[in-house]
């Protein structure tokens, strides 16, 4: 890629083009197996349709991948998000069961998620433990803590306000869709309209040099894990509200892997550096569309995992540095190097200078 430039990015559209193409293919597959796919109804004051379903069911992974993108941009990884979801769901359920309002429950869940994020951030940034290991601790212990909160059962509740977060609608649109769209926009805006995004990228590219350049990488790292914890908490509340109960064992099970997959499909390197939250969100939608294809086509859901695995492998092979080098060499040693890209790039560079 080109040098990170100050000012407006060259083209967001160009960056997310591959993801848009994959999403279009996935949606086309959906239409191929189910021609009515794009049909959207408005019944009982609520939008109905398969497309709405994709957006709605993709909400937990979309929320998780917002935080995960930032974490991965700092060259980290957060394996604990699934367990944090379980904890947050359990805390929210326990709060409303105790007779508090849904607002209190949401706050309590966010507080729990925030604490989990702070803990991860503390381990990574202050104790300097590598992120896979640091977040593994909470991944192992987290479900135990969640079960401690729910006392080992599936804690059910019937608080209308809380249920609304997962199963309700606002102006006909299911609430989860609005939540992830709003949070995605908020975080994207927060990191791209300020220098935060660039500072995060600097940590991911080379933490030592970023610190020498005067970036307070420690605080920033803690913040990044905090955001991931908060996103996971919100996802956990939505999942719990959707099933009107907190299931400490199964809530968010394996969703950390889906979230990482979404980030990878979004074209973000696991080695840190440049990131795009929009692309990750598209990645989450791609995963959900593929799930939808498998469901609609009547293929046994058993194939879901195999297809996902093959997909992840394919994308990884394309992304791998060795293949990248190979393609680069192939292009460089080609008989006729294309002059066009050079010509097109030069004015941009000059403009940047």
């Amino acid at each position, binding site marked *: 890629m080109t040098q990170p430039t100050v000012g407006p990015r060259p083209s967001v559209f160009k960056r997310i083009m591959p993801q848009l193409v994959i999403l279009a293919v996935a949606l086309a597959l959906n239409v191929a197996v189910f021609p009515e796919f794009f049909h959207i109804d408005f019944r009982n004051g609520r939008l109905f349709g398969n497309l709405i379903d994709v957006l709605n069911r993709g909400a937990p992974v979309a929320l998780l991948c917002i935080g995960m993108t930032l974490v991965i941009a700092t060259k980290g990884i957060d394996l604990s998000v699934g367990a944090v979801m379980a904890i947050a769901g359990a805390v929210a359920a326990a709060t409303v069961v105790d007779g508090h309002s849904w607002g209190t429950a949401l706050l309590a869940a966010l507080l729990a998620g925030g604490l989990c994020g702070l803990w991860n951030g503390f381990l990574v940034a202050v104790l*300097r433990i590598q992120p896979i290991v640091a977040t593994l601790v909470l991944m*192992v212990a987290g479900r135990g803590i969640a079960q*401690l909160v729910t006392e080992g059962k599936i804690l059910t509740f019937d608080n209308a306000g809380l249920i609304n977060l997962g199963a309700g609608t606002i102006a006909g649109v299911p609430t989860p869709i609005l939540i992830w769209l709003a949070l995605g926009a908020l975080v994207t805006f927060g990191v791209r309209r300020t220098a935060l995004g660039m500072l995060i990228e600097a940590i991911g590219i080379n933490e030592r040099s970023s610190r020498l350049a005067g970036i307070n990488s420690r605080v920033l790292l803690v913040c990044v894990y905090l955001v991931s914890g908060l996103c996971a908490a919100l996802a956990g509340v939505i999942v719990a509200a959707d099933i009107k109960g907190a299931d400490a064992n199964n809530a968010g099970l394996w969703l950390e892997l889906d979230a990482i997959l979404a980030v990878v499909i979004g074209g973000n390197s696991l080695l840190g550096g440049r990131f795009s939250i929009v692309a990750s969100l598209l990645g989450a939608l791609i995963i959900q569309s593929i799930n939808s294809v498998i469901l609609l086509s009547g293929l046994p859901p*058993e*194939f*879901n995992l195999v297809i996902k695995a*093959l997909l992840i492998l394919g994308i*990884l092979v394309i992304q791998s540095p060795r293949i990248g080098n190979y393609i680069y060499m192939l292009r460089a040693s080609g008989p006729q190097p294309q002059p066009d890209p050079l010509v097109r790039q030069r004015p941009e560079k000059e403009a940047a200078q």
Partner: protein
Amino acid sequence: MIRSTHLPLLITLATFIVAYALCASAYPAMLSFRVVANLLTDNAFLGIAAVGMTFVILSGGIDLSIGSVIAFTGVFLAVILRDTSLHPLVAFALVLALTTGFGAAMGATIHYLEMPPFIVTLAGMFLARGAAYVLSTESVPITHEFYDMLQGLYWKIDGARFRLIGGLMVLTFLVGIITAHRTRFGQNVYALGGGEQAARLMGVPMASTTIGIYAVSGGLAGLSGIVFSLYTSAGYSLATVGVELDAIAAVVIGGTLLTGGYGFVAGTFFGILIMGLIQTYIVFDGTLSSWWTKIVIGGLLFAFILLQKGLTWAAEKRATRARQRTATGSAALS
């Protein structure tokens, strides 16, 4: 003097002895052979898989696929024995070849495509679990006289039954210890974990070592799957979810450094026993709920990671001080 490289192993050993003493003082019955025998039998499959994980972590990698591979092995064996008339031994050989090949393929992907082991084995985890689903989503019972014969094998002391699978685990650990410390492959694994570039410059065959490590891990996961199918007499595609995390936890509690290059296979054995002990204690207690297992293991994991961090930090500090001393010494000389 105790060498600092042995310190984590000694701490693990001390933890085990203290934990056992505490358990025994609360419940004297825990000192019986029967408890020891059950400790070995119940943790046999986890122990075998953890040996493979130890090699992977010693080399600085990680293998997230083993839980799925164990489940796949179980389902594969159950389906083969149900649908064909193959002898279980042939099926064992078949499934071991399959899982070893699977591990080798992951190792090759990691080496030749230069991808992080974490993400490759994550894909492997999906793939193996998916393959198990495709074979059967229901639990398939295994009924074969050869299985009954194997399950009936035990060595009896004082009414305690040391079963075949427990012995198999101990044997795997012995072979693992010898391989790690007495063979060229073992030395290469340590070298790789100590630093990839240094290992390459030393002439360690990178490709064959990396592929070998993951093949060992895959093969041992297959063996662990066979043991698990002997233990449960069934194959179920949803079984052994999260075993990879238990195995990683056992390796870390056993004193192996997660950054690689440092640790002992024997430590993992005691890591497994400590985890088994926690479970046994909770069973003996009866009032504690099973989720305390997860929390205690998480806490232990954290304590050992902290310990590793402290040791590394102390070693670095010492190295810096030594360097400063030589620097001032040479400055004084000149």
